[in-house]
């Protein structure tokens, strides 16, 4: 790990002063569950590490107008222990509990979950976010891609590592981003971006900005997340689907379906969403929605199986949201 300066700001103003104009200047430390390994592996070598855990206004879960506010430094454990979250957003709880390590839930934060870097093994071994070989060739399409994207035409083939992303997108959440020059609000869906060139990041955040909070609309939906993981011990999902359904009696008035671990971003299954409107959730409609969700998939040489997994994840998430036992 490269030596670094350590900043421990007490408030946002101090934090902004400690951040830099490039990613090499400073890195934000919250739970540290990702940053420490990135630094130890020299994937990131910031000159300064800015610990934001001491900034009070970044914590806490509260009702804020018609929205639920979750502070950026709320840990996954705090999130899953919160009664209001538990009752309104089972999809979020299911996603967070999918991080099946109490240690990670104790340390990992909601903001950190959105900002963590992809787990692509080419990226983590130093071949860049776009996974390029010594001659600039794309490593993923011709290499080991069983954990990579099934919705991407390149050049980025990694999958977003965010655990809460699919649930937050399906719930229509927004993320508040602040810097010395003010605040802006971005739908979580737009927060994730697929880089198209070297040096670009996978999230809509600048080096001098901080994620401060997540806002989730309160109106009730039936929601659920279903992840497929190879093992029960803490493991990245092979695929994840999160759904939020607004119901009109027993029929769906609108559906949000967001997929994780299948694209560089959180992937919106809009065809599946449309076809559910006006329908009742049954095994058959859920299955059809699963089919529709993967209709445009473009799997790589080693990850065709993820198309099937995603189909099943959508089906099971829908059935879970509707309270139907498959």
């Amino acid at each position, binding site marked *: *790990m*490269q*030596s670094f300066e350590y900043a421990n700001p007490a408030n946002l103003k101090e934090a902004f002063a400690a951040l830099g104009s490039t990613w090499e200047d400073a890195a934000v430390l919250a739970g540290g569950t990702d940053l420490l390994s990135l630094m130890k592996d*020299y994937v990131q070598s910031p000159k300064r590490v800015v610990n934001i855990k001491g900034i009070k206004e970044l914590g806490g879960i509260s009702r804020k107008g018609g929205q639920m506010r979750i502070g950026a430094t709320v840990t996954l454990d705090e999130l899953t222990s919160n009664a209001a979250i538990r009752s309104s957003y089972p999809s979020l709880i299911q996603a967070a509990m999918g991080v*099946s390590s109490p240690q990670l839930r104790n340390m990992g934060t909601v903001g950190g979950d959105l900002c963590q870097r992809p*787990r692509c*093994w*080419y990226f*983590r*071994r130093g*071949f860049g976010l776009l996974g390029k*070989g*010594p001659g600039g*060739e794309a*490593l993923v399409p*011709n*290499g*080991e891609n*069983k*954990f990579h994207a099934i919705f991407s035409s390149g050049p980025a083939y990694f999958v977003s590592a965010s655990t809460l992303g699919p649930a937050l997108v399906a719930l229509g959440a927004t993320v508040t981003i602040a810097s010395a020059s003010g605040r802006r609000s971005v739908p979580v869906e737009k927060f994730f971006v697929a880089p198209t060139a070297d040096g670009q990041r996978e999230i809509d955040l600048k080096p001098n900005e901080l994620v401060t909070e997540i806002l989730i609309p309160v109106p009730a939906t039936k929601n659920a997340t279903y992840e*497929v*993981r*190879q*093992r*029960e*011990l*803490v*493991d*990245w999902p*092979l695929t994840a689907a999160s759904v939020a359904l607004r119901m009109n009696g027993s029929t769906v008035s609108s559906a949000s379906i967001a997929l994780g671990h299948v694209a560089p971003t959180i992937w919106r299954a809009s065809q599946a969403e449309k076809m559910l409107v006006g329908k009742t959730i049954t095994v058959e409609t859920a299955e059809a929605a699963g089919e529709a969700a993967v209709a445009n998939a473009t799997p790589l040489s*080693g*990850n*065709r*199986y*993820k198309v*099937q*997994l995603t189909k*099943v994840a959508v089906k099971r998430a829908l059935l879970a949201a509707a309270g139907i036992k*498959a």
Partner: protein
Amino acid sequence: MPEYKWPPMNKRKIMGQRISRLDGPAKSSGRAKYPSDLNPQGLLHGVMVTSPYAHAKIRSIDTSAAKAIPGVTAVRNFVEAGAEIQWAGAEIVAISATTEEAARDAVRAVKIDWEVLPHVVKDENLAKVGTRAKAAGEQITGDPDKALAEADVKLEADYGIPVITHCCLEPHGQVISWKGDQLDYWPSTQAVSTVATQLATLIGVPATQINVTCDYMGGGFGSKFPPDTWGAEAAKLSKESGGRPVKLFLDRATELTIAGVRPSHYAKIKIGAKSDGTITAWQSDSWSSGGFGGGGMAPIPYVFVNIPNRRNNHAAVALNAGPQRAWRAPNHPQASFLTCSALTDLAAKLNMDPLALLQKNAGLTLRADTYKDQLNKAAELMDWKNKYHAPGEGKGTIRRGVGIGVATWGGGGHASKAKLTIHPDGSVEVELGSQDIGTGTRTCITMVAAESLGLPMSAVKVKVGKNSYPASGPSGGSTTIGGVSTSTRKAAINALEKLFEKVAPSLGVPPDQLEAVDSRIQVKGNPNKAMSWKQAAQKIGPSPIEEMGENVPAQAAREGLNTLGAAGVQMAEVEVDTETGIVKMRKMVAVQDCGLVVNPKTAESQVFGACIMSICSALFEERVMDQVTGRVLNPDMEFYKLAGLPDIGEIVVHMDIQEVHDKRGVIGLGEPCAIGGTAAIANAVHNALGVRIPMVPVTADRVLNALGNKRYA
């Protein structure tokens, strides 16, 4: 000649009891210090520069910038310019520094000019390895062509089991320092008594100057015998740094890349059988790789060795990947997987229960009665009769299945010397240059000594882990328990004989009329003519009794204290989600014979661990190589997946303890129990689905690819 033989089963007071390991509390509380826990004063940190290329020539190495980094105390090259590197991760430069950070900065400051050469790192497809495959020659018994042609039923299928690593939780390495001409060496090792000699040769100092200490070690599985290049370089770094202790342990990525792998094994297998299930022919065309040295043929057909007509062809594939090391029962898990998978598929072709097929052909094994017996016992514990169904039969998207794997192993005791001392105050110590690699060796030695002396275990102090103690063999091949229990037994009986000589006059009988029972020395069978152990010890005089005991493998058969030949049967029950291809363990049963079982509790513990390792290799574990970069893509604990507690299901261990096995003597256990599980799990998946997943680990991608459009409801 004293009588060394084991007391009869029903007369033993300590051996055979379920004794918790003596160092359990120290380990679970963190008080036990492993070599990698040691931080002696003045510690320096050693880090290595390794090759980023799988095949390359070094044009030049420039370490000047590294040497200039503050805190760096020494920089040494493992290899010089001109060297050809055959795998990524190969050791190039070793650096010591006052902090790990400085050492790592220095590593990054080393400039190497590489000439990158073509590499081959993947062996799954034999057609793609070109000239890297070297035929190992054909072995033929009987007339396999004729037998296959005449067979009523023929199976032809392909199977594969990939390279896995040892993934030791405590990585390879050591702390090492000089005091004058003496080298204090704390390696994480399986070979306390031999590692010093090897290090001596590597660094050119007499073995007499090397003092090895290894009280605990965090896993080796066959990969921690030699001092390794990093041991030698750490010694030299320390020397060049004025003798300050250097701690050089591999980081996780390097550990998984170069510190040992279990070779892959792939095979196209043909089996011929009569319609009643009698197996008549075997043919295998196989290949394997454990790195640049290729890979030897696993012993196939496995266990069912006496198939009358056989042909084996094998090719060793040289890969530019980290080298193989012995991995808990070298080549046996692969052999068991290949053979038992094929036999299970043959059973399906015969419309037979694989249990019945194995029973029917038990005559092809070397221990027919034992295997029949163990198959029955395992079937009973698994409730096989109720759980077995025709492959793929069942309802719903979640399917269950059961499968079998078998094992055999040697496990005779290695050469071992033990010194047992009875002090005049009655205290007793046993010293062996052996090691407890986590198996409970310390506890078992204590049990044997206490049993032999008629003392409680608390009265015996066992010391292992130093090369200054009498030499005992490395812990490999499941040879430790046979070796150390025999040498300890003999040392104890020899020491008792001396004690009896001292005590006999006081009790008024010849020494051979005495026995040691319940902390007393008494006239045989007469507790009234006795003295306490303490009183007896006072008769010794000022100098303690020190006696040696030795296990000489060539004499073991005659003495009957230890022998070799262990059999095992494992069964698995799994649940497969046919929509996702995710396999979950429900239950494993392991029936294992290992002769006389010194401590059933630590023995079972060995088997539990082995079952978990089998689950890892059957469901999760494989090294992933990248053909373009030549690198290991998953040298971490994130994508190099091992099972966690929630992944292992129920494990039932049945130590096959019975008179017939007991009277054979002590047999090693570490390896035989780590063989059959992978096959059992793969076969259980086949039973659940009615479709063979030809390669392990049985991951979602492999299951779904094999199922294709097949749907279950």
